[in-house]
Every structure is written in C-alpha cells, then in structure tokens.
C-alpha cells in the first residue's frame, strides 16, 4: 500500500465516532467481522432457528452460540452497515455545505 493509502487508513482509524470517516470505519469493521464469520462457515449453524443442530456431534448449544454470532454479524452487515454508509454520505454533504456557506460569509465584499 502506498504512503498516501496508509495515511488515509490511519485517518479513518483515528476518526471521531460521529464523523463521516468514523461511520465509514465502523461500516468497514462490520463488513470485516461478517466476512470472517461467513468464511468460518457459521451460516450453517443458523439451522438452530428450526430447532435443529448443524450436526449431531456438535450439539445444539454449540449451534445456538455460533448461529447467534452469525445472525448478529449478518444483520449488522445488511442493516447497520448501509445505514452507517448512508449517514456518512449525508454528514459529508452537510459538512461541505456548511463549509461553503461559512466561506461565503467570511469572504470580503467585491469592489464596486
């Protein structure tokens, strides 16, 4: 990764929670956690919702725990992730509009 790319990542990681960058960072974190849960095959354990364990050997308790983890990360990815990204976009737009209007107020009047 280039120095500029690393710098951007560092800025994202250190972003304040209620900033556009902070929301993007959290959406990325959710996507990463969901990807790991999915790659580990936890999707199979959601079968606990039908009252069945993923395997007889593994047992029901294991399926419930792993299935709940998958459910939480999936719903976060599908529902919370897009909301965070949309909110980041809205905040970014609002901040730009705010800066533009402040710029207009500060700039000196044009010569007659």
């Amino acid at each position, binding site marked *: 990764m280039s120095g500029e790319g690393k710098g951007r990542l560092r800025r994202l990681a250190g972003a304040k929670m209620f900033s556009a960058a902070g929301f993007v960072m959290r959406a990325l974190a959710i996507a990463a956690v969901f990807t790991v849960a999915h790659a580990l095959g936890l*999707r199979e354990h959601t079968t606990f919702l*039908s009252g*069945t364990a993923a395997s007889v050997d593994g047992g029901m308790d294991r399926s419930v725990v792993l299935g709940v983890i998958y459910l939480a990360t999936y719903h976060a990815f599908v529902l919370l992730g897009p909301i*965070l990204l949309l909110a980041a976009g809205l905040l970014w737009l609002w901040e730009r509009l705010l800066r533009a209007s402040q710029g207009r107020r500060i700039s000196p009047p044009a010569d007659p």
Partner: protein
Amino acid sequence: MNSRRQILAGLAALGIATAIWLPCAHLFFVQKESRYRSASGLPPKARALAARHLQLWTDPALRTRELERMRHSNAEWDFMGRSFLVWSLAEMSLREPAAKTTYLAVMDQIIAETLRLEQERGLYFFLMPYAKERPFLQKPERSLFLDSEIALMLAVRRTVEEKPEYRPLLAVRVETMLERMRRSKALAAESYPDECWLFDHAVALAAIRVADALDGTDHSAFLREWVAKARQNLIHPATGLLVSSFTTRGTPLDGPEGSSIWLAAHCLRLVDEDFARDQYRRARKELGRTLGGFAWSREWPVSWQGPMDVDSGAVIPVLDVGAGASGLAFIGASSFGDADYLAPLHATLDYAAFPKRKEGRLKYCASNQVGDAVLLYACVLGPIWDKVKEAQR
C-alpha cells in the same frame, strides 16, 4: 465543528439514513413471482429445492446425516419430511410429465421405506418420546399422525399414476381413520395419547377425499359432519379459528396455532372450500404480519398465548416471528393465491433463512430437510387438488 454539534449532526444523519434504508432493504430480496410460482411447469426455486431433496434420496450417507440431525430434535420431522416430499413430487409429476418416471421412482422408494420402518420399528419410531408416557385411549394403539400422512402419500401417488399394490393399502388406512374418528362423538382420533391434532385431521380428511375421487367411494356425509362438529367444538371464540389440539371428547387443549392452521386451511379446501377460505382469511388477520416489505407468521394469535413446543421452532421476540408457522404460511398463501402475502414471505425467506446454492441445488441454512420440503410443496402445490376437484365434479 465543536464536538456537541458534531454528535447531534451524526445522530441526525443516522436517523435520516435509518429512515431511508429500512423501508428499502427488502428491495434487495424481492423476487419476481415467476421465480417461486407458476401455473404450469416448475418455477426455478422449486427446481433448485427439489434438486437438493432428490440428492438426499440418492445419496444414502447424506440422507442419513440429514435425518439424524432432525431425529435428534424430533423424530416426527423425519416422517413429515418424507410426507411433504412425496406430496411435492406428486405435484411436480403433474407439472412436468417428462420427469414423471424419475419422480414416481423416488416417491415409491420413500413410501416403501416409510412403510417398512413403521412395520419393523412400530408407530413410536416416528413419534416424540412423550407418546410413551401414558397409554392411548383407543385400542389397538395407532396414531392419526402416521395414518393420515401415509394415506395422503399413497393417495397422491395413485392420483399421478395408478399402482395396484397401493389400492388396498390406501383403502385400509382410510377405513381405519374413519372407524377411529367415528368412535368419538367429536369425530376425533388420537395422534398421541388423548391428544388429537387439527393438522392430522385436516390431512386425514384430504386423504379421504382424494381416495373417494380415486376409488369412487363417497364419504361426503362424514366430511360434512366433521366440519359441522369442528364448527361446534373446535372454534376459538376470540378469533373464529380452529384450535390446534383437542381431546377425543373434543375439548380444546391449545388455541389456534400458526404451525397447524395454514396447512389445515389448505387441506380443508378439498372438504369445504368456503370454510377453508374463511379460516385462511382469519389466519391471515390474526397471525400474518407484514412490515417494510417483509412478512412472517405468528405462532399464536394475540388473544391466545400458548406454551411453545418443538413444532413451533424458534420464536423471535418483539416481532413474534414463528419459524414453523412462517414456513407453513407459504402453503396457505400459495394455496389461496394470496400474492400480497406470498411475495413478502419470499423476501423474508431470502433475507433471513440464509439460502445456500450449489450446483443448481438450493437449501436454506436456517431451515432443515422438513422445512425445505414444506417450502418446496408451497412452490408446486395446485395440480393434485385441481385434479381431485375435477374428478369430484
């Protein structure tokens, strides 16, 4: 921007984003109706679900693993998974005559193995352990749960194509069910000791009706009497819905239940179309729920809270999403052509039941074999009931 102002701006942005996203989320899961429903042929979803089931019945190791998983929770599901698959294959045979031979072979394999297991291991093999806690009142002990579903398996198989060996087997099941129901003033036969289920009675009545169409017998007087008794004894006053379980005297044990009423309404269409439609309409009002483009079914109506049993599956609190009830709601919505309910049910299925597709086969991870067989049946049902009604006319 100072930090207080930034927090307020962030919260406002989150609020607006939530208001935008939540009503739109379902759009990513909505499918064209032709994906899961068609007047003829097989819709793609049914084909993919069926491919997975046919694989289970041609791969013994895979089938054993899947059945063990279900039997570990509930032996009934092993049996019901067979029934729903046979009923589905019968519908598929009429929809896709070119594949009829393949489907009939699997149906016969399932029926033969089920009858063998019933004969060798006895009725308790497919019942939950509590069946042994007290004796059946009606002797010799039998379960309408087994008799009704086996009868309907035999009947729909013969509706697709006559198989002479099945004719006496069906006749005996039908006569046995009728004789045991007639022993009770409420026309109720046990599935478990002094425990009679609407689900099993509805399947039994449908099987009797199909048998009548096949063999030229006429049990319409009995079927009318059963509906009259049910209206008299088995209606939950607050909802007008049939209760889910009752004693042999016709005393309700539980109230209406999502995991019973949707299939019962579908089966009752063969017995009394108006009554069935009324039950569906009431179930839709009392149990069916839609929100933000998604739909599900409650297990119990608001006016009756019953104990959760293994048939109910998981119930997700707050929204009261019943896993078992929602699965069977597909059958009700499909049978009564309720596209407004069926479309959001399918959106919910693809959102929250975690489809897994592999080499043209489809399974839902949040489900199991019986759950997927119920979904398959909901996608293909129609031609058998139409054929029976046509024969009766």
